[in-house]
Structure formats: structure tokens, C-alpha cells
């Protein structure tokens, strides 16, 4: 008998129909990959299993866990199911844990909720659960607080909480999206091992087809509240029939082959020479002087005219700090940044404005990078502040609308507010804002990381086209190697505040020299490789 069986699940909130007849099955010991873009209904489906869908939602259909009908279960019954029979791991390890509770207590609490055990016994079981997820008490005492752990370790605690009472089904909702690739690989391995040992079912929700190809026995692809295709992983991904599913797979691979390696002797747009950014460190003893922490430790990097340079590294490698240094937003403790041959930021404010218009930025979060109270016209026109005689009134409006058209938005977008746009459209607005002063270099900080694969492919295409049309250079900071492969001419790999490898994209990807680059590349989920390993 199936472990979980969802029959014709429908869910609506007011007029909006979020799920339109979803039917799924999960066998014991099976991993089901649930794939789709944001808003496709995959998370809502998972929450509906636990009857945690948003207030005011009306649900119909049947959800059977073994022979228990969850749609008919009372609230008390559901509490036993949630966290007892069905464990959940969420995306954000930062917010899934209570910051004021020691990790041992958090795991023990989830045990005590579902098992009749005393405090001491719960703590003992918590220690075993944490050991199972690779956090042995000898190195990670139970009285650690979440902030003392890294993102990956926190996600391990969350997994320990979910798996401690041996649920029959584990739902993992984008469990590795917030993590670095090498950490992601470890967490995925851990999840696979745990559910295999316990014979539990796993629903792995993700937007990443490559992750699914590596992990799942079966795949279901969702779109707009419906399952458009489902079947065994290898067979399904090799022979996708639904046009949407095919598009999803193509975009995931970013098939638009790497741009031609260009060896350019053009003048550098931006040169960083031996840049050091250090933060005051903590004193370890009253007699010793505090050692400053060097987030960026003597980095040199050049971006030439018309060139796209990728800067890769994990969180904490110093790539974002370097980027802020390049933007002139951080005071340097050593080295210098030169923009178009001039030292940046210069001492005089007038000169600073003149130079600053040559470098603009696009940030990661398409939701956080706009003042919610400003209209798009004002947002896009904000960098006009750098001009000596900024266009006013009708001229300003025309300039903004021309730029909006250039990035593929209708001109009337200028009168609307950012919340009226989707994530991809907002990144287009951000690109318009970055280009309005006709800069020489645009710095992109994880600018496509928050986007769905299809939208990501479109935005990357747009960036490539604009680079050709306007001759603008990009410095592309990302942890996503697929993105780098698709659009960068050269790559620099950062680790621990230094650049450990640098070269043309092909060189770095095909013949990585540094051990760290090699581990990054092998940890990155790869659709082709995973399917080949399955013999599909």
C-alpha cells in the first residue's frame, strides 16, 4: 500500500484556485521529487498534507497517509501527524530554529512532543539524533545556540528535529536552496542516507532539476497548480513530452553554450590591485592585540571593456565584500581600485560623482532592492542624481521609458509600483536602473540567483544582448557555476578572501587546477552527469 496517496486535491482561496486536482503517490522508502517554479503550488501541496494551508483556504479531495484520511482528521489527530508521522525541513535554516534555544533542547522538545519520555531520556535521544546527522556531542555540545553554527550545520539540526521520532514521511521544502554547493551536496547525501536507513518516504521539493535527477526515484513536475508530468526519474527526464517540462529542462542546463573566450587587449575598465578589507577582530586575551579579520586579503582583479567576468565562491569567501569595495562603498585597508584609469573613490565629491556614474550595480533580491513607496520612474531615475544636469520632467520620463523598453518592459511600467511586478520583471527594472547613466561597468551581485530557471535564462539573455549593444562590462558575482558557464568570458574563484584560481571560463571548467575549484565543480548538481550515472 502506498505510504501517501493524494487524490484530486483542490485548494482555493477566494477566487484563486491554487491547486487544480493534484494526485500523487509516495511509496515507503521512495523519494519523490516535486519540481516547479515559484507559485506552481508545490509548497502549498506539501503544507496541505499537514493541513497547514493558509487561513481561509477551502480544500477538497483526499489525502491518505497509510489508511488514515488526513482530510477527515481532527486537529488533535493532526498534531500527532505533524512532526510525528510526517517530518518537515524548510528552506531557511536561519529562521527554522529558535535562536534562544540550545540545539539539544530544540531536538529534545520535538521528541518530547511525540513520545512519552522523560526529560533525561528526551535529551539522550536528542544527542543520538544529532549524532546521526553528523553533529556528535563531542564536537557540537548540546548547549550550542543556533547562531554558533553555520548554515549547513543549522540545516542538520533542523533535519535532526524532523527525523528524531522516525517519521514515516519526510517533506523537505527546498532544503538546500539557501546553502552553498558543497554544503548542498553534503546535506543531500545526508537526507538520502537517513530516509534509506529508516525506510521513510521523502518528498523533495525543489526548483532544481539537477538536484532531482541526483536524488529522486520518481519526479512530478508542477505548473500553475497542476501536475503536468510525472514518472520514474530517468525515463521522465530523458523523454519529457510536455512543452513546459522540456523548457524547464533546457533552461536548467542553460544550454546557450558558453560565450566565445575572448582574449582582449582592450583597456581595463576596472582594476583592483591588492585590495584589502579588514574588520577589527575580537581580542582573545587581554594581553594580546586583536587580530583583524581580513575578509578580502590582497585581491587583484581586472575587468576589460566589453568583458564579462565571473566571481565565484561560497558565502563567506569575501566575494560580496570585494564587490562593495569595487563599488566604493567600503573603506579599504590596503590596495586600490582604479576605474577607467582613475583612482576610485576619489577624494573630491565632484570627481566622485563623475566617476561613480561609470559603475552601477544590480543586487540579488528582486524584492528588497526597491523602495516599496517609489514609482518605477523614480526608481529607475534615481542614479540621475549623479549627473550634473539631470533630465527633468518630460525628458526624464522619456529617458526612463526608453530604458524600460530596452530591457523588455512596456513604457507604461514607469507609473506603477515595484510590487506590481514579478521577480523577473523586477530584475529587469533593476537592470534599467543600473544602465540609465550609461555606465562602463555593471556589478551584479547574485542577480539571477533568486529567479526561476526559465526567467533566469531570459534575464541572462537580456544581459548578454545589452552588453553587445552598449559595450558595457559585467562583474558577475555568483555561487551558481551554471550561470558563469553560460555568460562569463573569464572566471575568478575566491576562497577565504583570496582569489585561488583565475582563467578563461573553458579553462577553469574543463581543466580546474586548484583543489577548491575541483571540489566546487564536482559538488555542483549536474543534470547530464546525474542522468548518465543512472544509465538513462
Amino acid at each position, binding site marked *: 500500500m502506498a505510504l501517501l496517496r493524494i487524490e*484530486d486535491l483542490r485548494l482555493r482561496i477566494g477566487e484563486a484556485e491554487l491547486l487544480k486536482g493534484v494526485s500523487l503517490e509516495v511509496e515507503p522508502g521512495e523519494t519523490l521529487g516535486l519540481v516547479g517554479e515559484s507559485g506552481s503550488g508545490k509548497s502549498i501541496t506539501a503544507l496541505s498534507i499537514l*493541513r497547514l*494551508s*493558509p*487561513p*481561509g*483556504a*477551502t*480544500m*477538497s*479531495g*483526499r489525502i491518505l497517509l497509510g489508511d488514515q*484520511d488526513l*482530510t*477527515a482528521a481532527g*486537529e488533535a489527530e493532526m498534531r500527532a501527524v505533524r512532526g510525528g508521522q510526517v517530518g518537515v525541513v524548510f528552506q531557511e535554516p536561519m529562521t527554522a530554529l529558535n535562536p534562544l534555544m540550545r540545539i539539544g533542547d530544540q531536538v529534545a522538545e520535538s521528541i518530547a512532543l511525540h513520545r512519552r519520555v522523560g526529560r533525561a531520556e528526551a535529551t539522550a535521544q536528542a544527542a543520538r539524533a544529532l549524532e546521526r546527522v553528523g553533529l556528535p556531542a563531542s564536537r557540537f555540545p548540546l548547549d550550542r545556540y543556533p547562531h554558533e553554527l553555520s548554515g549547513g550545520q543549522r540545516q542538520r539540526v533542523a533535519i535532526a528535529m524532523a527525523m528524531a521520532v522516525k517519521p514515516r514521511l519526510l517533506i523537505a521544502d527546498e532544503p538546500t536552496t539557501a546553502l552553498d554547493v558543497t554544503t548542498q551536496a553534503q546535506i543531500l547525501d545526508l537526507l538520502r542516507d537517513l530516509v534509506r536507513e529508516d525506510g521513510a518516504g521523502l518528498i523533495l521539493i525543489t526548483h532544481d532539476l539537477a538536484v532531482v535527477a541526483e536524488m529522486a526515484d520518481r519526479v512530478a513536475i508542477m505548473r500553475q497548480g497542476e501536475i503536468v508530468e510525472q514518472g520514474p526519474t530517468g525515463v521522465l527526464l530523458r523523454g519529457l513530452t510536455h512543452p513546459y517540462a522540456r523548457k524547464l529542462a533546457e533552461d536548467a542546463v542553460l544550454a546557450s553554450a558558453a560565450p566565445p573566450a575572448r582574449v582582449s587587449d582592450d583597456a581595463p575598465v576596472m582594476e583592483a590591485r591588492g585590495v584589502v578589507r579588514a574588520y577589527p577582530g575580537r581580542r582573545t586575551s587581554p594581553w594580546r592585540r586583536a587580530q583583524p579579520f581580513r575578509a578580502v586579503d590582497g585581491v587583484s582583479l581586472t575587468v576589460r571593456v566589453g568583458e564579462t567576468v565571473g566571481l565565484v565562491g561560497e558565502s563567506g569567501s569575501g566575494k560580496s565584500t570585494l564587490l562593495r569595495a569595487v*563599488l566604493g*562603498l567600503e573603506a579599504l585597508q590596503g590596495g586600490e581600485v582604479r576605474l577607467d584609469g582613475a583612482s576610485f573613490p576619489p577624494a573630491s565629491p565632484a570627481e*566622485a*560623482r563623475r566617476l*561613480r*556614474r561609470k*559603475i*552601477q*550595480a544590480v*543586487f*540579488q*533580491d528582486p524584492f*528588497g*532592492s*526597491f*523602495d*516599496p*513607496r517609489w514609482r518605477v520612474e523614480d526608481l529607475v531615475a*534615481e*542614479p540621475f*542624481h*549623479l549627473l550634473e544636469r539631470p533630465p527633468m520632467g518630460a525628458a526624464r520620463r522619456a529617458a526612463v521609458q526608453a530604458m524600460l523598453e530596452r530591457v523588455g518592459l512596456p513604457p507604461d511600467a514607469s507609473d506603477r509600483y515595484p510590487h506590481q511586478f514579478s521577480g523577473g520583471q523586477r530584475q529587469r527594472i*533593476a537592470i534599467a*536602473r543600473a544602465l540609465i547613466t550609461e555606465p562602463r561597468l555593471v556589478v551584479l551581485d547574485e542577480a539571477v540567483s533568486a529567479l526561476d530557471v526559465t526567467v533566469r535564462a531570459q534575464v541572462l539573455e537580456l544581459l548578454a544582448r545589452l552588453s553587445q549593444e552598449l559595450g558595457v562590462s559585467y562583474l558577475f558575482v555568483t555561487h551558481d557555476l551554471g550561470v558563469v558557464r553560460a555568460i562569463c568570458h573569464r572566471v575568478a574563484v575566491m576562497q577565504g578572501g583570496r582569489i585561488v584560481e583565475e582563467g578563461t571560463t573553458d579553462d577553469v571548467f574543463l581543466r580546474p587546477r586548484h583543489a577548491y575549484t575541483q571540489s566546487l565543480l564536482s559538488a555542483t548538481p549536474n543534470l547530464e552527469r546525474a542522468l548518465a550515472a543512472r544509465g538513462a
Partner: protein
Amino acid sequence: MSETTIPGPATRGGRASAALWLGAALTGLFVAAVLLSLVWTPYPVADLDMAGRLRAPSAAHWFGTDHFGRDVLSMILVGARNSLAVAVVAAGVGLLVGVPLGLLAAAKGGLTDELVMRSNDLIFAFPSLLLAIMITAVAGPGAINAVIAIGVFNIPVFARVARGAALSLWTRDYVLAARVAGKGKGLISLQHILPNIANLLIVQGAIQFSMGVLAEAALSYVGLGAQPPTPSWGRMLNEAQTLIGFAPWLAIFPGVAIVLSVLGLNLLGDGLRDLFDPKLDRSR
């Protein structure tokens, strides 16, 4: 096939707007009383009528008369004027001084932040009413000094609210984008930070306003607010104290006026907060 409505937390919209409407109505009543008193009162408040003193509420005197024969309803209407003026100006002082200080502390950080916030702590460390009594005792009683005394305590409240909210906004990417656009900290505070914390400040303003009404009543009660013959709710309560056994209306009506206006302003503040921030769901 079963149809299930998910038992979620009760939708809060109706309850929130009920509080908002009740608060707005009570506050409206308060303001209406002030406006009415400017053009008309049932009897002139300065009129003493020793023959008609301590009358119980009747058709002629809805709220009765006091020990000098003055009409209590008229005194409450005129007293509202005093309460409103003191509370508005005191909240305004806090807003106009405190918010720029908070924005400055958040924008500059470091030593400036420490200086501003530690001096705020200093003011906070005093029991507010006690210090207000001290100020009025030194500077002499009167409405103006009451305003200053209450206003000074509003400064750190607004400074803290503004600084806390501003600090969280300073980490936003749109602030970074404004810096990349070459804008300085002052301009960013004015263009991006202030508009985005305005709703918090309005809510805090309503709450400080209600506390101002209460503080004014307390100061008048101990004789340090508006001086006779200007009627004031706090002093009416004080004067009713010895007569409460046989003329309870003298205490009840000003007491009810204070309670209703403070309640109304608090409900208004809460309602506004829910209105501005639908995500803040306290019923969960």
C-alpha cells in the same frame, strides 16, 4: 469526497477595523468637544452660581454642577481643549526632536549613535511623572511647563522607534542602490528611510498622544498643570475628591472623559498599526 475548510486562525480583518472605527469615533468625539467648546458651551465656565451648587445631573445641567455651581458639562468641554493642546504639542515636540535624533543615530552609527542613545537612556532612567513634577515645581506650574515636561519624555520614545526601524532599513538593498546612485546619508534618510518608517511613527504618535492626555491629567491633579480658573480634567478630579460621597458625578464625568479619550486614542493607534501592517498578525 469531503469538503474541508482549513481551521486557520480567525480572520482578523473585521476585528481590527472595529477597533479602528471605535478608536476613530472616540477620538472624533474628543476633538468635536474641543471644537464645540470654542464656539459654544451650555453655560459660561466662569459663572459661579452659589445658590445652584452641587446639583445632581438634570435636564438643565446634564452632568450636574460643582461646589461653586459651575456646569460640569461645560467644564469638561473646555477642559478637553487643555488636554488636547498639551498632548498634541507634547507629542509634536517628541516627534520633531526625537525622530531626527533617531535617524541621525541610525545613519551615523558609532560615537554619534552612542551619544544620542545614551542620553536617551538618561532621560528614560528618571520616573517620568516625578521629573515632570520637578520641572513644573522649579519652573512654576502652568500649561506651558506641563507641555515641556511631557514633551521631553516623548523625545527618547520617538528616537528609539525611529532608530530601530531605520537600522533595519539601512541593510536593505534599495539603500545600497541609493548609495551607488551617489546619495549621501542625509538624503537617503530623508528620501528612503523616513517615508518607510512613517506609519510606525504615526502609530507611536497616537499612543504618545494618549499618554500625554493621561500625563496632563495627572499633573493637573497634583496642581501643576493648567491653573485656575482654566478648567482641566485632572483638577476637576482633585476637587471632586472630598465630595465624592455625596456628589459622585463630579468625579465620574471627568473620569469617564479621561478614560474614553485615552482608550479611543489607544484603539486608534492599534487600529492604524494593523491597517498599515497587515502582516503583523497577533492572533497567531
